[in-house]
């Protein structure tokens, strides 16, 4: 956490992100088939979700139980507009951003004035309300069967289908998001976040508008989830309400915690789990879910910093061993 020279630490993080992102360009070459390539695309979407939730949860210390609702709002906003009204998905993207920002502002403004679990409660309520709307506004959303017939994206006459082109598109979009998060963490706002997560009182005393910073982060994180929803719906040409319910929100909390809350690289690892776990859980037998639950307890008990904390600790151990 405590960097001896912040600008050096920042440069190192940017370099690391650059290297990781460049390596990700090689993934399609290594992917043996479209299925694996699609897992890569899902990973980008999960990273956008986990990274944005981590910004709120890890850095601002606020529990949100509606990340999946914002994800869904983005997906349905663009999906419904393009599938039912023939609106261009790019306008749909604007609508998704505007809607998620407005919704997050309306929920965040009153609840972030309060400490403790009020954001958790308000976001939980919001997620329930959105889930009911996704299911019951059948005329628009297709109801419990889901929204079908969402068109794929196209850019300058190029269709961005579920293949290498979508991979590259997600690579750019999510790359920009992760860059934005890194910029934010090394900006004045990032320092304000770190200050207020240590002590809100001290942050206030130093002239930080705590409420505005929290609200800004909450809205930004919701918008990122909305953009992830936009990617999801045009990738799959489909949206289904159960992907965006309260359980999905709780799952995202778990993913961020497993990756490592409040670390920049945690969501990268968490997103890997997020791609693998839901698929695996659906096919899991009851016994395997029991094992999964117990291992979750163990990871949180022994590595409260999540997987990235564990990796860092391992790295230090190895480093110390090598130094001797």
């Amino acid at each position: 956490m405590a960097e001896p020279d912040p600008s050096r630490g920042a440069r190192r993080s940017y370099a690391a992100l650059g290297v990781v992102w460049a390596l990700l360009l090689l993934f399609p070459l290594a992917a043996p088939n479209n299925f694996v390539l699609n897992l890569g695309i899902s990973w980008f979407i999960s990273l956008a979700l986990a990274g944005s939730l981590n910004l709120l949860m890890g850095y601002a210390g606020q529990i949100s139980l509606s990340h999946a609702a914002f994800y869904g709002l983005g997906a349905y906003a663009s999906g419904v507009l393009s599938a039912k009204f023939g609106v261009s998905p790019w306008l749909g993207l604007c609508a998704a951003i505007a809607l998620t920002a407005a919704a997050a502002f309306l929920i965040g403004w009153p609840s972030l004035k309060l400490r403790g679990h009020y954001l958790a409660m308000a976001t939980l309520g919001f997620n329930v309300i959105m889930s009911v709307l996704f299911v019951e506004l059948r005329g628009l959303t297709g109801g419990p069967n889901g929204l079908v017939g969402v068109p794929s994206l196209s850019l300058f006459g190029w269709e961005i289908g579920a293949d290498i082109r979508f991979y590259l598109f997600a690579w750019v979009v999510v790359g920009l998001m992760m860059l934005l998060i890194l910029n934010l963490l090394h900006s004045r706002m990032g320092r304000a976040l770190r200050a207020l997560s240590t002590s809100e009182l001290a942050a206030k005393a130093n002239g930080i508008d705590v409420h505005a910073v929290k609200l800004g982060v909450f809205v930004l994180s919701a918008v990122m989830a909305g953009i992830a929803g936009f990617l999801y719906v045009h990738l799959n040409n489909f949206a289904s309400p159960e992907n965006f319910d309260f359980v999905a929100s709780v799952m995202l909390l778990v993913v961020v915690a497993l990756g490592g809350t409040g670390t920049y690289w945690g969501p990268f690892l968490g997103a890997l789990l997020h791609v693998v776990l839901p698929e695996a859980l659906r096919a899991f037998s009851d016994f395997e879910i029991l094992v999964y639950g117990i291992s979750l307890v163990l990871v949180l008990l022994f590595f409260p910093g999540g997987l990235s904390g564990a990796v860092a600790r391992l790295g230090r151990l190895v480093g110390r061993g090598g130094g001797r």
Partner: protein
Amino acid sequence: MDGSQLLQLVASGLVTGSIYALVALGFTVIFKSTDAINFAQGEWVMAGGMIGAFLHASFGLAPLLLLPVCAAAVALIGLVSERLAIHPLKAPTPMLLTLITIAVAITTRAAITLVLGKAPAGLPSFSGSENVAVFGATLPPQALWVFGITLLVMIGTHYFFQRSLLGRAMRAAAADREAAGLVGINVSRMAMWSFVIAAAIGAVAGLIITPLTLTSVNAGLMLGFKGFSAAMLGGLGNLHGALLGGLVLGLLESLSAGLLSSQFKDAVAFVVLLVVLFLRPAGLLGRASTERA
């Protein structure tokens, strides 16, 4: 809509509300001692119902006898969960505790599924099967049991925390951990008791609602988050708030289903709930001090 239909809606809202109140009470007890949202609470409610249904079907245990047995069994689950998953934590924070309770919830549900199966299970009413008329509303007899037992549990919990040595020690530990430690209260032991008590209360809630609604391993999720909402509505950390929050949420749901739309009842209930929270941030009965700005 005439008067008797309205009364019917109010009565059924109060039945559901009583259950929400008990679940909320469980949340409140653990929140007071750890500041964490306990995601396992709903699973304990489910466990109470499932274990009760199993014991009744296999050994023919009378429903009233099931109350202490199930409460004890689920209290044991709470005890084991706390000792294995919460107690070993070196640096507990509310966030970490909350996340661990999610893991505990997943584990508990999987364990119950493995042992008792996925099929929905039911119980007969605690007494009689003839509906009874109360103030013009017709209620199944089990509804009266729900009211009575909820009231007893509420009064019992109140006296436990006001009068008994353990209850007062728990309140002291919740109010100020360090000061409580200084006067010789084992603070971590108090957290353990809060899990035991919350689990037992959850089991009672699950057991008394099962004759009315059946239960299954997936029932805990919904009950858990309704209970949490009720606890927040009443003012998290406030025992009387849990009762009031539960009853209000139950009434809201029942009335919005009956008078507005059954499809949107959850949405209506939660919109009202959010508005109340934003207008009275500390909950209906919470004092301003619970905001801790």
